[in-house]
């Protein structure tokens, strides 16, 4: 493989990682708020915080890793996305800051405030919506190159059915993935009340999940026919498999069986769809301005980045496994027997 493909594979994988653990985090915040409003919070709040406390910071790093990495491997993206994303980027950053800050204030601080939980919960749905703009823009059609620089065509973006489909996909995926994980986590903790609630939420969101995916596909055909055709002709099997795994996860949870396996199915479902989407998009990162074959960083830097990346993984993977072993896979900790 050449550098640009190694680079984009690495980055795409990290983005996928962020989507999964970010979704769990964002959704958990929203469920916590919802449970608080409907006075069911006693059932899930300790469960959710047992999961979130040790991992929220790590979640954030996945995101940083992605955007630092993409500027490193493909410096042109900094220019095009940087010039156009000022407003959506700012919105996402402010929401992220409010969320991170107030999560810490709420969790580690002495007093709890409803306003803080509210901010934390609501931002959880708005952040994915703001970030999904990046994916929309990358399909092309919203950016104009002028003498002054590159500009984002706002009206076009706001009127586009495709961009709205992506926004809803982002929000629904968050609720779907998150409830899927928390169902598993509650089952593992032996917390029947929380389990029942989370399972119910999961089943509620499974339907819209399937529907919104079809909308995204259909609107993509209108918006970027070339991308849609590549996806359909070359990678249709990835999307078909994705639906198979979706159904498998749904059936397992309906039958209340193998919850760990069910969540893995959900992860595979998203991996297949996400990589299918990514593969069919190549060679463009930003259609038609940033082509990975032309925008890749110079060779020396690319080698250095790949070497550092491998060394970094050798350090990170064992550390991450240690973190998971101590908190997520430690049965006593999950059940709340350890502090």
């Amino acid at each position, binding site marked *: 493989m050449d550098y640009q493909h190694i680079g984009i594979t690495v980055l795409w994988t990290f983005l996928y990682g962020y989507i999964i653990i970010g979704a769990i985090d964002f959704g958990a915040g929203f469920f916590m708020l919802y449970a608080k409003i409907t006075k069911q919070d006693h059932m899930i709040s300790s469960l959710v915080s047992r999961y979130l406390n*040790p*991992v929220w*910071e*790590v979640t*954030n*790093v996945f995101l*940083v*890793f992605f955007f*630092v*990495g993409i*500027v*490193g491997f*493909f*410096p042109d993206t*900094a*220019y*095009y*996305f*940087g*010039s*156009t994303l*000022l*407003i959506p*980027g*700012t919105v996402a*950053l*402010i929401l*992220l*800051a409010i969320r*991170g*800050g107030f*999560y*810490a*204030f709420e969790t*580690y*601080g*002495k*007093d709890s405030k409803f306003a803080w939980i509210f901010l934390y919960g609501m931002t959880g749905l708005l952040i994915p919506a703001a970030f999904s703009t990046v994916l929309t823009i990358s399909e092309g059609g919203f950016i104009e190159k002028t003498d*002054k*620089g590159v*500009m*984002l065509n706002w009206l076009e973006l706001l009127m586009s059915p495709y961009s709205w489909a992506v926004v809803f996909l982002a929000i629904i995926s968050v609720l779907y993935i998150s409830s899927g994980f928390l169902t598993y986590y509650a089952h593992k903790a032996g917390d029947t009340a929380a389990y029942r609630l989370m399972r119910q939420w999961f089943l509620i969101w499974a339907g819209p999940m399937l529907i919104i995916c079809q909308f995204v596909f259909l609107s993509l055909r209108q918006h970027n026919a070339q991308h849609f055709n590549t996806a359909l002709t070359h990678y249709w099997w990835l999307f078909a498999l994705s639906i198979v795994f979706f159904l498998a996860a749904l059936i397992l949870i309906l039958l209340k069986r193998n919850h760990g396996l069910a969540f893995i199915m959900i992860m595979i479902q998203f991996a297949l769809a996400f990589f299918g989407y990514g593969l069919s998009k190549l060679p463009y990162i930003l259609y038609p301005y940033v082509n990975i074959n032309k925008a890749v*960083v*110079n060779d*020396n*830097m690319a080698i*250095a*980045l790949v070497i*550092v*990346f491998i060394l*970094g993984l050798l*350090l*990170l993977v064992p*550390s*991450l496994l240690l*973190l998971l072993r*101590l*908190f997520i896979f430690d049965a006593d900790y999950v059940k709340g027997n*350890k*502090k």
Partner: protein
Amino acid sequence: MDAVVLSRLLTAMTLAFHIIFATIGVALPVMFMIAEGLGLYKKDPRHIAMAKRWAKGFTITVAVGVVTGTIIGLLLSLLWPTFMKLGGQVIALPLFMETFAFFFEAIFLSIYLYTWDRFKNKWLHWLINFPIIIGSTMSALFITSVNSFMNTPQGFKIVHGKMTGVDPIAAMLNPSFFVRAFHVVATGGMTIAFMLASIAAVKILRNKFPQDRDYHTHGLKITITVGLLFGLLTIIAGDMSAKFLHNEQPEKLAAMEWHFKTERQADLVLFGILDPKTQEVKGAVKVPGVLSFLADNNFNTKVTGLDDIPKDERPPLIIHYFFDLMVFFGMFAFTISIVYLVLRKFKPAITEHPFMLYMIALTGPMCMLSIEFGWFLAEMGRQPWLLRGYLKVVQGATQADGLSLVLVAFAMLYAILGFSCAYVLIRMFRDKPAEFDVKQNQAFVGGE
């Protein structure tokens, strides 16, 4: 206002806010490692309580540090897209490594905070401090490397307007890297030590929980000793910086010292006010020859003056004030630490005198201000360049609309975050005597 001014303002504001938390993030882990180690070694629950309380407060500041760090990371591309496109070719390596270091630190910090009672052998928990400190120091070093590259770029050639022959390692280990990295780490340690000393001094002065006095005086001893050690390193680093600037960035040294004429036996200018029109300096203390001496350990060294720098490449002269304040505040804290430790040895009673405590209370905020002034000096001293010698600030800013709105939004965000953070931190320890924590940790160290 035009895009360049707005972009600069927003970048400056974000960095000025972030640097507070970044500084805490670099050095506070060192402090609770020392406290925890002492506690385990001496089987003293006071030290363990200290480590736990510091680590608890750290969770709040680290959260704000993480989110503001994420903001600055993305804002760089949003506000300076042309620079990042160029920079991406050269500085991607340290930026990428910084993320790894940060990742590493985040993982072990999470483990550290939640495993106080997990291990039978308490030293195992103490060992977790190492990856945290390695991670935080490394991330400071890498990000400093990016900044020093902007001051002293190297490791690439420009042929017909395109970058070629990029050498990532040379760019990373650029001439100013070592001096600046050393300066950053030393001042970080110094600042945190004095911040913690300030808190202890204020707590003793307030005297809300008289039974805590022993705990806090104990804290003073540790923090001020550490502060003194890092203070010494800071002075060495400062001296190295002066020599470095003389050799590599003479325009910065000249501007910060109001040194207009290139000459031998150059004077060191302390304080004073400059009349911007006549370039006349009023009320300054001029120490003959010392600038030459600082630059090269020789009173006869010729120091470049501003008249040898092209007019459109001169940094703003305001940086002299930042330089004065930085040095003065830093030296103040350093002196207080010596006075305190000497008194403690020979006249311990005086160390508890309110006047002394008030002076100690000043050291922390002063050191933090020193850090801010130091960065103002370093960054404004590189004006008008964004990438010194290659790209001017004017050419790097974004052309996007809505910058003023974004500026206001971020200003509000930082105000809210800063206020809430302070509120939460104060509430955290206001009604809880340290004595309570000390008692809780008696079992931890295996005491009675």
